Structure formats: C-alpha cells, structure tokens
C-alpha cells in the first residue's frame, strides 16, 4: 500500500505544480507570523520579534529545498525550474546563447542535410529484396551473348542469371522524340531482381530470343510523365528505336535498375545467328544466389565456371575470363567508384559537426567559468551542490535542444537548397528525402556534448572547490583548470578548421585546373544534334547517303559557319574502341596491340569543332569508297606509335576495319578530350565517313554558328525532315552544356567543399572569438590594475592577442601536420595539384591565423579600454 500512497502523492505534487510551491510559501509565512506574534506577546517589539522568528526558522531556501526533496518531487520539479532559469540566463546573455545555438544548429543542420543527400544517393537500400544476394560476375569484363548462354547452363549456386546492357535510344511520342535512357536485359532480369511489376507483366521466357515481339517495361516515373499515368498504357504501341514496341508493364514507384536514370527496360535480342552474339562483349552478368548457399560452394561454382569458359573459348591474355573469376555485390558494382567521394564528404561532415560541438563546448565552458562567483554565492546561501550541478547540466541540455530545433529547420532549408543546386538526373530527386535517423543521431551527439561540457564545472563543484571561491569571486577558482580545457578546445577547433579549409582548398584548386584544361576543341558557338536512323527503318545504303548529305547540306544552312558529323561526340560519348594494328610496329601485334578509339567523321567536323590540324591534311570529298583508304590520328597517337618518325604515310588497321584493310595516315590533329576530363588521353583515330566500314545507326551533327548556336536547331530539324522523314533528332546539346555536364561531378564536389570550408571558417572564427573574449572579460580586473600601475593600452592589447593566439597557433600547426599526413586520402580527387600543395596548405594556415587574430583583437581592444577605476570599484 505504501508505494501507492507514495505514488499518488508524487503525482499530485507534480500535477499540483505551482500550487505546491504556493502552499509551501503560505505555510512558512503562517509559521513566521505565529512565531512573531508569540514573541511580541512575550514583550518583544514587533521589528525584533520578526527578525528573531526568521532567525529561528532558519534559511528559507534550504527549508524549501528540504521540503521539496522530502516530497520526492526531485528532478522533475527541478527540471521545470532549471529550464525556466536556463531560459532566463539566455535572455540575460543573448550573445552567448545566440552564438552557441547558432554554431550547434549549423553543425546539426548541415550534417543532416548533407548526410541525407549522401545517404539518398549512396547508402539507401537498392529497390529489390535481399540485395546482398544479387551479385555481378567478373565485373572487369564485358560478356558476349554466347558466353552468357554458356554460363547460364553451368551455375548451380545461382537461382537465376541475367545479362543486361545499356540500350539508350529515341522513343517517339506524339509530342516528338525523346532520348530514352533504358536498359536491355535478358528475360531473367526481373526474376534476379525479384520485383513484381505494378501493372501488367515483366519479360516472359524466350522474349529475348529471335522471333519475339518487341516489348517494353516502363518505370513509374516515365509512365507518369510521358503517358500521364494512363491505366490503358498496357498493350499500347510506341516507336522505340524506330521499332513498333508494345508496352507490357509498369514498375512500382521507387524501383530502379541499374540506376535511377534508367527509365525503361527492353528484352535483349540474343540471336546466335548474329555477329553481335559472338562478337565484342557488351553485357554485364547479374545473378541471384540461392538461399543458404555457403561461401565455399559459391566460390567452387564460380571457379568451375571459369575453368569451363577457359576450355570452351580461347581468350587473349589481356581479357582471359578463365582468370580472375570473382563476383561482387551489386551494390559495390553500381556504387563502388563513388565511395571515396562519399567518404570524403562524410569525413568533412563529421569534422563540421565536431567543430560545432567543440565550439558550443568552449562557449559553455567560458560561461560557466564566468559564473563561478554566482554559484559560490548560491552555495553559501544554502543551495545544494547537487542542485547547482543539475542546473548547469540543464542549461547545456536546454541549449542543445534549442539548437536541435533550429538545426532541424536549417536542415530542411539546406536540404531543399542542395537538391535544387545539385546537377542530379531526374530519377535521383525522387529517391532523396531528409533522413530523420541522421537528425536523431546528430541531436544525440549534441546532447552528449551538452552533458560532457557541463561535466567539467560540475566535477569541480562536486569536489567542493567552489567553497574556496567565495571570497575570490571569479578570479581564479575554476579558471586554471577550465583555462587549460579552453585552450585545448580552441586548438582542437582550429585544427579541425585547418583540415576542412586545406582539404577544400586542395580540391577547389583541382577543379580550377580542370576548368583551365586544354579541351582541344572550341565549345563556343557549337551545337551537337544527335541523329538516329534505325536499322529497321532505313537500309544501310539509305543511311549512308542520309548521313553524308546531312553533313554536306548543313554547312550551307544560313548562319552555319562549319558543319560536320562524327559517330560519337567527344567528352560525352564513349564506345567504339578496340585494338589497332600498326604496320611498322610488329612488336605491337595482337594481343599486345594498343587500344584506340575509332571515330568516323564527315569533312568539316574538325573545322566546326575547332580542332586544329597539326600535320598533313584533313579529309575532303575525294576520300570516298574506292579511293586510297586514309586515316587521321591524334598527336599522342603519332608520338607514341612512331616516336621520332614521320607519321604521315604510316599504315594502320583500326578495330572496325577488315583485317587486311590498311589505312594510310594523311594527317595529325590536335589532342582532344575524348571521354573524360581528367587523366591521360586515350589514342584516337579518325576515318572519313565515305570510307567507313558500315554507316552505323547514329551520327552527331556538329554545327558551328555565329552567335547563339541553338538558333540553328530549327533549320537543322527542317533539313533532317526534308532529307529523310524517318530519321530522328534524338538529342540536342550545345558543346558548352556537354563540357559543363562532364564537369558536374567535380563541380558538385567543389560546391560541397566550399560550403564546408565556409562553414568551417565561420565556426572556427566564432569559436576563437568566443573563447578569447571570455578570457579577456575574466581578466578585466587584472588588466585594470595593470593599467592603473602604468601599463599602456598597447601593452594590454599585445598581451591579450598573444594569449589568444597561443592555442590558435598550436591548432594551425597541428592542422597542417595532420593535413599533410591525411592528404594521401584525397590524392585521387586531385588534378595536377600535389596533396601537399603549399598554396592550399599555406592558404588554410593564413586564413585561420588571420581569423584568430581578428577574433583576439576585438576583445583585446575592449580590454585596452577598460577604465581601471570601474574595474576596481566593481570588485
């Protein structure tokens, strides 16, 4: 029964809240009154009687405290009072509260927003069940159809094996044509992924074999955007890649494969009768592991497949699939190469959060130190030590909570800004959302920091050091211990800031170098129009003459300065590469043959693109079928294949030429960025369109105009329609756009890093300022006395700055040292910048030192203006 009454009392006392306090007060008042009355009856004058009664009653505060504790209301009552008190404190010191809340909130907000983006792109589960059971085979190779069929028969540990590749092609809709990024897959793909469609069906067995009707499965997003979410889409016919194709299914929202950019899936056409089937590899192989298969069994399975492949096929050494057999998880395969960038960003985020915590800690520590005097007075007046300790704790917790709320708001705003400013493909924006788990984690960290920060003064309190402080007030007491803690915090914070700023500086300089990079072409005023002529709609002869005429006629269009075509646009498009034979270099015969990109161009291409001729001649109308087969090579091709020799007149055999189809080199052109913005350029050879081994289905028409190149597009479209109305304009992009897109990734990184560096700098400066200015305030009396004794304001100023700069200097030194040690980690992201680049490191050091000086001078200037008289009087 006792626990029950006890419980009821606690609840009542709690609910009673204020009335409990009022009751206590009136009870005490009543007591005092009665006592006074009694004493007066004994003959004491009124005033004395009241004093005596009060004396007998003892300390009001302590009584109330005891009564409250006897009630066992303990912490909850205290919490209310402490929270009120904390808020009152913040109102009294708005500067302190503002800066603390702001730094913590910035830290929490930025961390949550950035991490959410990172998580959305990188860490979220892939949209199919048991993703850890989905693996990719020998990811270093592209597989041929014949190998896929061979492997499918020989894997036991996998319940399904599927092949897929990119089949991006134009989709003709009522409103025009769009280039649809889509994957071609064998019939088993959706079994491997184990995701049922939202509507209709996925591929049926055999739908990837000759004779099957062309079908397509749409992503939810594509269905919504291009088909208006119409339920009648199933069975509808669309023209995909020039072929009438039936829509058979729609996938559920959120599903993507392999990346969110892919918006549809079509069956591959695996026909043993075609050259494609046994020619070059172009497939990736994914499999789903049977449940409960041991790692050992998996490995044995893969090994036996590798051996079987080696027996069945003959491989050149360079791509021997019977060697290096291994599987990797689909996650690693799809996201693997972004991991270092993500780790880098996460590292920066963590640094930022740590910095903001260190900052808040330093400020709170300074505040508590300042209040030593106040606290000792309260102890003297009868407040329990535990009570004061709890109050200090509450104050930092309240701070952390307020910061978390502001941080949450900041996170929402920052997240929207980030998503809007990131050059993300359409598919990604849909899968991104704020992560409240991250918010909880950041908030938790802020709380922990709040408690840890309060721990220092609380420890001192509980040790009883405060007693001695009574007479000394705020001068010494906690000052020594916390002073050291302070300096350490400032140094740590500056160190983190140096890391952030130096890291960011390195990457920013890298991106700047990237910008200044020699593209080897002039993107200004150039527009690239991708033309598509589906095999099914145009014969080879028809295509050949179409592409030829387009280039010829386009150069005569009004406003066009130069026009040409190429099979793959530089910088944007890869592909069309293979081993090249060099007649004069038998040492480089197959399988040692170097790899070269193979580009078919129409005359005028080099001129339109602004690529300069270095030697020999460019192609002209004479380079047609029947004439001497010719080629033009890039500078590095000539330099590497024929060092010290004249490249003109040499003979080469490209990967797409007949085995005995030797071409004579007639020219050398400027080095051009081909597939990536960084790294060494691969070899490239150009052949004239008129001597191409086959015309291909797609060519990029490149037009150079006077001013705005997009103004040429309508006339170019008209020309295409005029020449052949079955041809499709698949994509229109200015060269400027192409270059910008290629730099999006590094630019995105730079954007983030500048954000980090900026925030780091702000936090670092605020931290140093906060701490130094508190140190100055604490020593105001000392400075006053010294100035009274003859020290000049200049002396004091120098002294303050010196004191403030000691931890800053230590932090900068430590930061530079650690940056040098850690810089290897960012090496891979740098372009023509050494990881220990003195400019970046020096910049970070100087910036932090400067902000340290600013942070120290301001309070120092105030210290120098202290009037000695004021200070002495206030003591």
């Amino acid at each position, binding site marked *: *029964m*006792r626990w029950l*009454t*006890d419980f009821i*009392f606690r609840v009542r006392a709690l609910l009673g809240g204020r009335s409990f306090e009022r*009751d*206590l007060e*009136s*009870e*005490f008042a*009543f*007591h005092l*009154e*009665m*006592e006074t009355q*009694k004493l007066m009856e004994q003959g004491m004058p009124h005033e004395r009687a009241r004093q005596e009664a009060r004396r*007998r*009653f*003892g*300390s009001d505060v*302590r*009584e109330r405290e*005891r*009564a409250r*504790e*006897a*009630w*066992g209301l303990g912490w909850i009552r205290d919490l209310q009072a402490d929270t009120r008190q904390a808020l009152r404190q913040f109102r009294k010191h708005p500067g302190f509260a503002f800066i603390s809340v702001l730094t913590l909130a910035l830290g929490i907000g930025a961390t949550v927003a950035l991490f959410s983006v990172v998580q959305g792109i990188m860490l979220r589960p892939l949209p199919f069940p048991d993703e850890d059971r989905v693996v990719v085979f020998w990811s270093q190779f592209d597989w041929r159809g014949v190998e896929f069929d061979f492997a499918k028969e020989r894997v036991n540990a996998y319940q399904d094996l599927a092949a897929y590749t990119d089949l991006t092609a134009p989709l003709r809709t009522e409103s025009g044509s769009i280039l649809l990024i889509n994957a071609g897959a064998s019939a088993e793909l959706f079994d491997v992924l184990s995701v049922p469609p939202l509507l209709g069906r996925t591929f049926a067995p055999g739908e990837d074999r000759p004779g099957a009707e062309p079908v397509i499965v749409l992503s939810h997003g594509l269905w919504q955007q291009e088909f208006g979410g119409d339920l009648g889409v199933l069975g509808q016919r669309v023209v995909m890649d020039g072929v009438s194709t039936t829509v058979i299914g729609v996938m559920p929202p959120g599903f993507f494969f392999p990346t969110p950019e892919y918006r549809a899936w079509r069956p591959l056409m695996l026909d043993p009768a075609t050259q494609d089937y046994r020619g070059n590899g172009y497939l990736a192989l994914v499999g789903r592991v049977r449940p409960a298969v041991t790692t050992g069994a998996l490995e044995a399975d893969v090994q036996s497949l590798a051996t079987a492949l080696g027996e069945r096929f003959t491989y050149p050494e360079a791509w021997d699939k019977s060697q290096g057999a291994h599987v990797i998880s689909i996650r690693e395969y799809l996201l693997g190469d972004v991991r270092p960038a993500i780790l880098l960003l996460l590292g920066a985020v963590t640094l930022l959060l740590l910095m903001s915590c260190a900052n808040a800690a330093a400020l709170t520590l300074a505040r508590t130190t300042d209040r030593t005097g106040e606290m000792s007075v309260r102890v003297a007046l009868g407040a329990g030590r535990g009570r004061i300790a709890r109050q200090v704790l509450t104050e930092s917790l309240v701070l952390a909570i307020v910061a978390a709320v502001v941080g949450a708001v900041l996170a929402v705003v920052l997240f929207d800004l980030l998503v809007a400013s990131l050059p993300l493909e359409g598919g990604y924006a849909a899968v991104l959302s704020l992560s409240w788990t991250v918010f909880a984690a950041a908030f938790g960290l802020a709380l922990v920091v709040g408690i840890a920060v309060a721990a220092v003064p609380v420890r001192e309190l509980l040790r009883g050091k405060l007693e001695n402080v009574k007479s000394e007030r705020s001068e010494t007491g906690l000052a020594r211990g916390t002073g050291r803690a302070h300096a350490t915090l400032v140094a740590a914070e500056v160190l983190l800031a140096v890391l952030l700023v130096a890291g960011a500086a390195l990457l920013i300089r890298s991106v700047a170098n990237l910008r200044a990079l020699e593209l080897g072409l002039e993107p200004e005023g150039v527009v690239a129009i991708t033309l598509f002529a589906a095999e099914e709609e145009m014969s080879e002869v028809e295509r050949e003459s179409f592409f030829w005429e387009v280039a010829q006629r386009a150069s005569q269009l009004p406003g066009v300065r130069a026009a040409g075509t190429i099979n793959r646009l530089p910088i944007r498009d890869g592909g069309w590469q293979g081993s090249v034979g060099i007649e004069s270099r038998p040492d480089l015969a197959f399988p040692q043959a170097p790899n070269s990109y193979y580009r078919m161009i129409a005359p005028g291409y080099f001129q339109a693109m602004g690529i300069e001729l270095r030697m020999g001649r460019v192609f002209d109308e004479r380079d047609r079928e029947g004439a001497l087969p010719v080629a033009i090579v890039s500078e590095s091709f000539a330099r590497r294949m024929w060092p010290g020799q004249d490249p003109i007149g040499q003979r080469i055999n490209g990967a797409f030429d007949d085995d005995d189809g030797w071409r004579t080199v007639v020219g050398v052109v400027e080095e051009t960025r081909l597939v990536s913005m960084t790294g060494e350029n691969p070899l490239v050879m150009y052949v004239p369109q008129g001597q191409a081994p086959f015309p291909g289905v797609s060519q990029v028409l490149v037009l150079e105009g006077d001013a705005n190149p997009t103004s040429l597009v309508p006339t170019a479209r008209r020309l295409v329609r005029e020449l052949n109305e079955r041809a499709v304009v698949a994509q229109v992009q200015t060269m400027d756009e192409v270059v910008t897109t290629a730099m999006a990734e590094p630019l995105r990184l730079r954007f983030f890093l500048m954000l980090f560096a900026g925030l780091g700098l702000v936090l670092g400066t605020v931290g140093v300022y906060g701490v130094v200015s508190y140190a100055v305030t604490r020593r105001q009396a000392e400075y006053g006395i010294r100035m009274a004794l003859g020290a000049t304001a200049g002396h004091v100023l120098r002294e303050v700055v010196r004191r403030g700069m000691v931890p800053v200097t230590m932090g900068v030194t430590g930061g530079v040292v650690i940056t040098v040690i850690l810089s290897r980690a960012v090496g891979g992201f740098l372009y023509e910048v050494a990881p220990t680049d003195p400019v970046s490191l020096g910049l970070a050091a100087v910036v932090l030192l400067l902000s340290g000086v600013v942070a120290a001078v301001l309070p120092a200037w105030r210290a120098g203006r202290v009037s000695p008289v004021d200070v002495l009087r206030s003591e």
Partner: protein
Amino acid sequence: MGKDRPDLIKGTLDMLILKTLSLEPMHGWGISERIQQMSGDALRVQQGSLYASLHRLTREGWIKSSWRTTEHTRRARYYALTRAGRKQLGLETEHWLRLSKGVARVMAT
C-alpha cells in the same frame, strides 16, 4: 537557541510529531509549540527540520494535511494522523520505550 537545550535525537522528531497529532489535528507552528510545551521546554524543535519531517510523514502516508481556518480566521495547513499513522505511532512508542529503558538502565549503573 542555547546550549542548555539539547537537540532532538535523530529520528525522534517523527515520533514526537505523530504523538502530538494523535491528540488533535494541528498546524506546523502549533506542533512545534506543543512539543516544546509538553517537554516542559526541554525540547525545542528545530523549526527547519519540522517541515521536512511533516512532508516526509505525509509521503509515508502516516499523516494527511488540509487547509483550514484557525480560530483567528487565518488560513493554515492542518496535519492529522491517518489510520496507518496511528499504527506507526504504536510501533514507535513501543520501540522507544524499550530503547529508553535500556539506555536508562545503562546510565543508572
């Protein structure tokens, strides 16, 4: 508070309060006065500890309180013994008598 009046032995204050309240409901000041009076001025309640004791006893469920008007029409909180408190008083009285007898015996030798 002179040295001539000993402080209450620890733990006895609760018992004395219960005893006082067993006679009639009483407010805090009244209780302290009554104890002093009944002990022939030998005991003086440290007024400070009085209220802590009262609240502790309330929590234990041995006494209950209510606001009433005094004979001088002042509002005061009156404490009264509960049934459990009466039982507790019996226990403590017995315990105390045994203890004091023992102590007296030792001191008499």
